[in-house]
C-alpha cells in the first residue's frame, strides 16, 4: 500500500505540485491548507511523513510543527519543511521558542527553501521514508 504523506501549504500551486510529485512516485498525498487542518489530518490519518510550509494563515507552521513534535502519537513522524523562510531564520525561531518554553523540540528531518526542486524534494522524501 502506498505510504501516506500529509502536504500542508496554503498556496494552491505548491499543493498541486507536491501532490502530483508524490502521486507520480508511488505515494498517497493528503493535502491540507493550513496548520489547523494539517494538525487535524495528521492526528486522524496518521501519515508516514509530513511535508509542510511555515508561513500560513490561521495556524502557522511553527505552531503546528511544535504540536506535532510534542504529540506522543506523532512525534516520530518525519517532517520535511518547505518554506520561503530561510533555513537560518527558522532554526533561530525554534531556538528562541525552545528557550521560552523550556523544552527542546528536535529539528525537522529536512529543510527545503522555496521554490522546491522536484529532485531535491523527492530525494528528501525517499531518504525519510523510503
Amino acid at each position, binding site marked *: 500500500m502506498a505510504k501516506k504523506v500529509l502536504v500542508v501549504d496554503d*498556496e494552491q500551486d505548491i499543493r498541486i505540485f507536491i501532490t502530483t510529485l508524490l502521486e507520480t512516485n508511488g505515494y498517497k498525498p493528503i493535502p491540507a491548507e493550513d496548520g489547523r487542518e494539517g494538525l487535524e489530518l495528521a492526528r486522524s490519518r496518521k501519515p508516514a511523513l509530513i511535508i509542510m510550509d511555515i508561513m500560513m494563515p490561521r495556524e502557522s507552521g511553527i505552531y503546528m510543527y511544535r504540536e506535532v513534535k510534542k504529540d506522543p502519537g506523532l512525534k516520530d513522524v518525519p517532517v520535511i519543511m518547505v518554506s520561503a523562510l530561510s533555513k537560518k531564520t527558522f532554526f533561530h525561531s525554534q531556538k528562541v521558542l525552545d528557550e521560552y518554553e523550556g523544552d527542546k523540540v528536535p529539528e525537522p528531518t529536512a529543510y527545503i527553501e522555496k*521554490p522546491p526542486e522536484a529532485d531535491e524534494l523527492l530525494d528528501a522524501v525517499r531518504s525519510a521514508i523510503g
Partner: protein
Amino acid sequence: MGDKVLLVDDEEGIRKVLGISLADAGYDVMTAGSGEEALNIFRNESPSIVLTDIKMPGMDGIVLLRKIKEEKPDTEVIMITGHGDLELAIKSLQFEAADFVTKPIHDEALAIALKRVHERIWMKAKLREYTEGLEQLVLEKTQKLIEAERLAAIGQTVATLAHAIKNIIGGLKGGMYVLEKGMELHNTQYQGQGWEMLKSNVEKIKNLALDLLNYAKDREPDYRLCDPCEPLQEVFHLVQPRCRESGVSLEMECSAGLQPILLDPDGIHCCLLNLASNALDACRDFEPAGTPPGIVLRCLHVHGWGVEYQVADNGCGMDEETRSRIFRTFFSTKGTKGTGLGLMITQKIVREHGGVIEMETKQGKGSTFFIRLPDRRRLDASRTA
C-alpha cells in the same frame, strides 16, 4: 589702500582735523557735511566704516545710522557726540552703532574705537565663513544621508521583489512539472492543472511588471478639463463583467450638474480601477450576513472640492493593523495574488492632483474609499500645486 571711511560732520573744522588724522592712520577718507550728502556718498562708495556726528541740521546722525543699517547692516558706524548727548549716544547704540566717541576727539580714543570696529568686521567675516562652511557641511552630510537612505530603500525593495518573483517562479516550475507528468502519463487532469498553474503565474508576473512600471513611471500628469463622471463610467463598464462572474452586484450613482474640472483622466481611471478591483476582492471571499455582496461607485459634489469619488463595498473590511498599513509599498492582504503596489500608486496620483484619499472601514461590514479632487478649471493653477 586702506579701508574706506566716510566722515560726516556739519563743522568743516572737525572734518578737516579728523580727516587728516584718519588719513595719517592709513584710511581712505571721504567727507560729507550733512546726512543727505553722506547717504549719497555711502550709496556710491560703500565704505565699511562710517564716522558721523549725531547732531546735525537736516538729517541727523541717528537717522543716517538707521538708513545705513537698513541698507547695509554690515557697515560699522561710530557716532561722534558732544557733551550732554549721552542719551542720544545710548539711543544710537540701540540702533546698532558700533561705538561712540565724544568731542573734543582724542586721537587715542578714536584709535581704540576704530580698533574695536576692525575687530567686529573681522569677527563678522569669520563668523560668516564658519556659518557658510557649516551650511556646506550640513548640505554634504545630508546628501550622504539621503543617498544611504535611498540605498537602504532600494535594498528593501529589491529583497521584497526578489521574494515575489521567487514565489512566481515556484508556481511556474511547479506548473511545468505537473504538465510534464500529465503528458508523460497521458493524464488529462495533470495536464489541465499544470496548464492552469502556468497561466495564472504568467498573469501574476504580468501584473507585477505592470504595477511596477506604473509606480516607477514619473510621467507628467496630463491634465485636461473633463467631466469627472467619465473615468468612473469607464471603470464601471470595465469591472461589471468581473462582478457579474463573481455574483457581486455593481451600481453607479453620478450627481447631476457636476462641473468639468482639470484632471488627468488616465491617472484617475487607474486610481478608480484599483479601488474597484480591491472592492471586488473584498466581496469575493466574503459572505456578508443578510445582504448580498455589492459595490457602489459614486461621483458627488461636495463643498470646497471639485469632485468626490466613493468606492463602497460591503465585503470583509479591514482590521486596525491592515488599515494602518494599506498605503505602504508591497503591503498586500492578497497573498501571492497582490503586488502590494495598487494603493501606493493610487495615493501618489491623487496627491499629484492636490487631492486627498480617505477611507472608512469596519471589519466584517465593508470599506468605503473617498477620493476628493480640488476644483481646478485653469491650467496655471494646477501647475503651482
